[in-house]
């Protein structure tokens, strides 16, 4: 089965919100935010920013990176926690805004932080059965409008930011890409609904709720289990992993994950320091940063991991191609 990530892109609102600005409203010190999260700043949407608008920019950037036109797309898979409508989701709004995009299937997954991997699994399946040759996947989040910026909510509200990210997958290996493609070799997903109430968003106009202590315990366990399973399935050791691209929840969590996986932390891509946790979009942002850092070389193995509401988790292994 051929599945290559051939392009990636992001879009973030212009307004930078530093820890200094946020700390005053949350009643904490700026250093307390960076110490407890690794986040230095995040972006907050302007009044006229929309989830679909950010998504369109991210998909266009990914298409440009892949050097293909919207007309080449055979499907569009979106994810957001804050679509402008309950139905339809955000994907149809993106489809109509892409010049030349055909009347292709365009639909949403309600995936939260698993958007990257659940979309990838689905897109890979579409390629495998021949329903599509090129698929765009994206996530777009505007969370700042529903965050409680009060001392009581400081531990949660310090984490989140706004943004969008996208990637393009194709069943064809790119011939002359300036940024290396990543061949997806395997994707695994899991869910345990026992903790469905522990992490999530009740309604589209409320901020996130999270029992951080429980989430961290389960996230670390699932990261480790998932990584071990993928490494075993592909006869790889932690040393064989050249880059780790994770969802971006918290720097302290990623540091602990690196220790548990036995993979040096400098192989982890970190974008949350500049953008915070943009929920589903964060993993896309990390992928885009990893691909553009010029650190990947042909044959390198890339490990993808995510954990989020559900609890749901997943992982993937890719090989740099070209």
């Amino acid at each position, binding site marked *: 089965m051929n599945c290559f990530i051939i392009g990636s892109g992001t879009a973030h609102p212009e307004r930078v919100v530093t820890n200094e600005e946020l700390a005053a409203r949350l009643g904490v010190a700026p250093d307390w935010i960076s110490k407890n999260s690794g986040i230095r700043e995040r972006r907050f949407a302007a009044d006229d920013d929309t989830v679909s608008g950010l998504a369109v920019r991210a998909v266009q950037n990914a298409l440009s990176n892949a050097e293909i036109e919207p007309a080449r797309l055979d499907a569009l898979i979106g994810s957001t926690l804050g679509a402008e409508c309950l139905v339809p989701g955000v994907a149809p709004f993106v489809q109509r805004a892409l010049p030349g995009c055909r009347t292709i299937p365009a639909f949403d997954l309600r995936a939260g932080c698993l958007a990257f991997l659940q979309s990838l699994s689905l897109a890979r399946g579409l390629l495998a059965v021949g329903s599509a040759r090129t698929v765009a996947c994206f996530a777009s989040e505007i969370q700042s409008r529903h965050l409680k910026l009060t001392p009581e909510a400081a531990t949660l509200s310090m984490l989140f930011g706004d943004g969008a990210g996208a990637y393009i997958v194709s069943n064809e290996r790119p011939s002359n890409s300036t940024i290396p493609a990543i061949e997806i070799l395997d994707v695994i997903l899991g869910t*345990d609904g*026992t903790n469905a109430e522990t992490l999530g968003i009740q309604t589209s106009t409320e901020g996130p709720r999270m029992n*951080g*202590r*429980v989430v*961290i*315990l*389960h996230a*670390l*366990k699932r990261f480790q289990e998932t990584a071990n399973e993928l490494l075993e399935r592909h006869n790889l050791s932690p040393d064989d992993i050249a880059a780790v691209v994770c969802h971006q929840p918290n720097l*302290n*969590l990623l540091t*602990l994950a690196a220790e*548990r996986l036995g993979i040096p932390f400098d192989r982890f891509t970190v974008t949350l320091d500049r953008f915070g946790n943009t929920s589903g979009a964060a993993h896309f942002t990390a992928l885009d940063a990893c691909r553009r850092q010029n650190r990947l070389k042909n044959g390198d193995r890339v490990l993808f991991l995510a954990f989020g509401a559900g609890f749901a988790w997943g992982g993937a292994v890719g090989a740099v191609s070209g």
Partner: protein
Amino acid sequence: MLPIQVTNFLNERNAGAPAIPADASLFDTGVLDSFSLAEFITVIEDATGISIPDADLNPETFETIAKTEAYIARALGA
């Protein structure tokens, strides 16, 4: 009684502070936070050979020294 490795872990995190009462919250006393709780559980698993199931992976199970001792005793069938 806690295994020595578990006691050492807590003592290192509580260095310079008064001894931790058995029924005091390890979170309220600042000995543990969200991330060190994960390390604490790893130390317990390594020291006892217990594989803590998902259902017990919550902060309440390990909130105090007394609760942790009781949990380990139950898990080991003592």
